[in-house]
């Protein structure tokens, strides 16, 4: 469960300010966040992931204060518990699909790269329809395929919280359904919460809750 209390955040030197009085996301809950561009939805996701640290207020992850933790502790938390799907995929172009999926395991001591993980990576890639591309360089893939690699990388460690920033932005309707099915299925299997920023109104009914950003946050210059 994630809880935000009296959270206030501003970028250093900027005039933008985000304030959230209270927000709770229960374990296993799926939440869609909607709202116009530029009002702080991505900033909220980064705060939830511990990438950004609020100037005031608390973020509790399963009762543990995330906002007061050290940078190293927040990184460990992200690796163990957060599956982040970025708007622009954020893949490593010089690596193939398999290496991109296993990157968090290969460069951290927190996640152990075992044979079982390798098998899970392959299964996940097949489920996402990129199983035949495992040895291909991600720079050679289409936008949709790259997005699916990014989703698989986020889901592989079976995180407790999946954060997605417009995951269907580069996908056609068929692939959007496929990817959402995969994320919902993985979230359900591992009891993970799923927070998704989206502008796509036609699949909002799949989420437990839809939050209009303006309803629970106050933001602006």
């Amino acid at each position, binding site marked *: 469960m994630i809880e935000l209390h009296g959270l206030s955040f501003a970028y250093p030197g900027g005039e933008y300010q985000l304030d959230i009085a209270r927000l709770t996301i229960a374990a296993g809950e799926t939440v869609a966040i909607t709202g116009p561009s530029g009002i702080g939805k991505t900033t909220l996701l980064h705060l939830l992931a511990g990438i950004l640290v609020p100037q005031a207020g608390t973020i509790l992850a399963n009762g543990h204060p995330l906002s007061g933790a050290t940078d190293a502790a927040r990184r460990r938390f992200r*690796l163990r518990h957060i599956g982040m799907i*970025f708007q622009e995929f*954020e893949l490593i172009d*010089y*690596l193939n699909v398999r290496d991109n999926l296993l990157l*968090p395991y290969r*460069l*951290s001591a927190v996640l152990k*790269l075992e044979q079982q993980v390798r098998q899970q990576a392959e299964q996940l890639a097949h489920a996402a329809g990129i199983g035949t591309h495992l040895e291909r360089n991600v720079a050679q893939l289409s936008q949709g395929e790259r997005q699916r690699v990014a989703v698989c990388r986020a889901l592989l460690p079976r995180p407790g919280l999946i954060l997605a920033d417009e995951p269907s932005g580069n996908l056609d309707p068929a692939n959007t359904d496929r990817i959402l099915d995969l994320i919902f299925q993985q979230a359900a299997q591992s009891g993970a919460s799923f927070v998704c920023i989206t502008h796509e109104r036609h699949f909002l009914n799949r989420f437990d809750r839809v939050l209009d950003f303006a309803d629970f946050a106050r933001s602006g210059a």
Partner: protein
Amino acid sequence: MIDILQLACKYLRFNWIKTSIVVVAIALILFLPAALDLLVRHGATSLLTRAAGTPLVLGAQGSPLELVLNSQYFETKPPPEITYSEVARIEQTSLATAIPIYNRFRAGGWPIVGTNLDYYPWRSLELAQGRYPLMIGECVLGADAAKELSVQIGAHVISSPEELFDFAGSYPLRMEVVGILKSTGAADDRAIFTDIKTVWIIAGLAHGHEDVTQAPDDDGTILRREGSRTITNASTMTYNVIHAGNRASYHLHGKIEDLPLTAVLALPHDPRAGALLRGKYLRADESMQMIVPTTVIESLLGTMFRLREYLLLGSALAVFSTLSTTSLVFFLALRLRQREIETMHRIGLPRTRVLGLLATEIAIVIAAAVALALIFSIVFSRYVDLIMLEILT
């Protein structure tokens, strides 16, 4: 650690053109000052050792350096010629042993050095195979020359004409290889040694031809007879191969004292004899010069070492420039990869691992450059003698 190494290698391989350019640039900049230093030091040692082994060299007035380089290293164009009478002039003083040197012609690009049998023991040259040249038309090859020309005992080497259309000049002479010298690491390895008379034959100053004294007057060759002399036309068959069957027909035209040499090596019996001998060539009207090779080479090396200082300074500036450019390349590459690095941070990868990955990439590039510089240096050190001589000549 292995994972970091593998990922770093994948990045470098993916960007192989940039990686190769940076590796070669760093390797060259590491190699160049080292090569320059190696070249000068090795060259100095090699030149001095050779020069120190030669007490005195006699030659015509002119460039002492040219005389030393031609007589000691068998390089450069031949200096002005002197006559064989200078050998007798030295030996008549009873102060030194004289060894004639005539180094003007080449065979397959290798210098043909005409000398006498005293040269080999004095230079401590030993035979790897065969024997020394005892008769005209025979030669022994230095180790490198034999290897490069791929010849064995019993094979032949042919002298190269100085000018292609010089009808009155030297004709190619086919010389039999009767010995191959052991390698010494000195200029002797890169020379073809033969008897001084053989070189005079190459020069056209001695020759062998069919016996025209017994030929009938109407055979088309004889122009006229003047006492014991027989004057023939150009159809007289001149030999260009010396063998047992025609060796006796070879003869010199003119007196041996007047035939040319390029230098005479003088080996004084003791230091005092050397000083006395040098004194004999100090007269103002003397047409010869008696030089001490060490003095000439030390003077040359002095210039070389001064030049080296400037070159090293230039190299230092080049090193600074290259390292600055390389640093800029790394810095710009990091900026281009800012998003990738940011992604790693966002995923939660430890800061130390991300920095470790970048540092490993740089370390691999530097290690590859050092390895390449070492390979360059090893290859260079094998040819440093040749390069040194090429520079000097």
